[in-house]
């Protein structure tokens, strides 16, 4: 990979960041670390065990925030894909690409933590239930999208094909969300807001966990977006350099 205008050894401008971090993401990072420590203490130590599920309820504080938030990057990816097809700007392409990456992490974690919780409560890690199957399909679609993003092709063509796949994510997410209503399912119904019938300190522990995962989603999304943006700019730099070299090769004067 090469630079556009500076060599790798050139010092960057004083005010240019040397990473994807910024003051706001560092503050966010500190809040996440503190919040995670508090959340872990509440979830693993002070939270009451459930009357029916016993201590398995402690997986609730991880699984539910992850799956409830996974829809946000999925929707963002689809919206950004539609916007890229309309505007054709790098910003929308970077947003679509980065959102899919974050979504894959959240959906994957939702599947794993759900399987672990299912093993305790249902007696099996996996069943071809409508909710589980549609979530697995969403995860596969996200992996397919990310594989497309890494395909070595002309950037605009790759972005176009990716955008088409990205748009398909939202119908799949709708299928995931309503699968428990549309089909008979082993999974519980869709959760609507905070369940105020939760016993003891479970509701407050869940509220802290949900808050921490919101901050994590924001932090990851910001960094992933900046990464995707930088990758697009670096790729464009490579392309510009290749074109310049090709033109110099075609120049009978040798570019002098």
């Amino acid at each position, binding site marked *: *990979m*090469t*630079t*556009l*205008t*500076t060599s*790798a050894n050139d010092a*960057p*401008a004083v*005010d*240019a*960041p*040397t*990473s*994807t*971090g*910024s003051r706001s993401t560092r503050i966010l990072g500190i809040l996440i670390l503190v919040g*995670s420590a508090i959340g*872990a203490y509440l*979830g*693993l*130590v002070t939270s009451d*065990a459930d009357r029916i599920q*016993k*201590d*398995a309820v*402690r*997986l609730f504080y*991880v*699984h539910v925030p*992850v799956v409830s938030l996974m829809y946000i990057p999925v929707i963002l990816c689809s919206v950004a894909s539609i916007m890229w097809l309309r505007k054709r700007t790098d910003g929308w392409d970077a947003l679509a690409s980065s959102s899919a990456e974050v979504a894959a*992490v959240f959906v*994957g*974690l939702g599947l*794993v*933590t759900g399987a*672990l*919780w299912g*093993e*305790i409560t249902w007696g099996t890690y996996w069943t071809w239930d409508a909710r589980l199957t549609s979530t697995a399909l969403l995860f596969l679609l996200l992996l397919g999208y990310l594989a497309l993003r890494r395909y070595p092709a002309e950037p605009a063509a790759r972005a176009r094909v990716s955008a088409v796949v990205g748009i398909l994510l939202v119908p799949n997410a709708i299928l995931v969300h309503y699968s428990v209503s549309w089909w008979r399912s082993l999974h519980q119904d869709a959760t609507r807001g905070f369940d105020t019938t939760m016993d003891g300190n479970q509701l407050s522990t869940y509220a802290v966990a949900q808050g921490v995962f919101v901050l*994590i989603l924001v*932090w*990851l999304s910001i*960094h*992933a977006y*900046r*990464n995707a*943006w*930088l*990758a697009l*700019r*670096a790729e464009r*730099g490579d392309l510009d350099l290749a074109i310049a070299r090709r033109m110099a090769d075609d120049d009978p004067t040798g570019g002098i």
Partner: protein
Amino acid sequence: MLLAYTDVGTIVFGWGITVAAIGGYALALVRRGKRLSRVVPPEDRRWS
């Protein structure tokens, strides 16, 4: 206290894999960001 929980192995694994996945992804993002920042001109890094 944790050791006395029912299904302690599954609970710890569930929390552990969540921390590992998110922490690992966060670390990968930071490293990739630093690497890419070295090859992209300052005017394209506008979030400071």
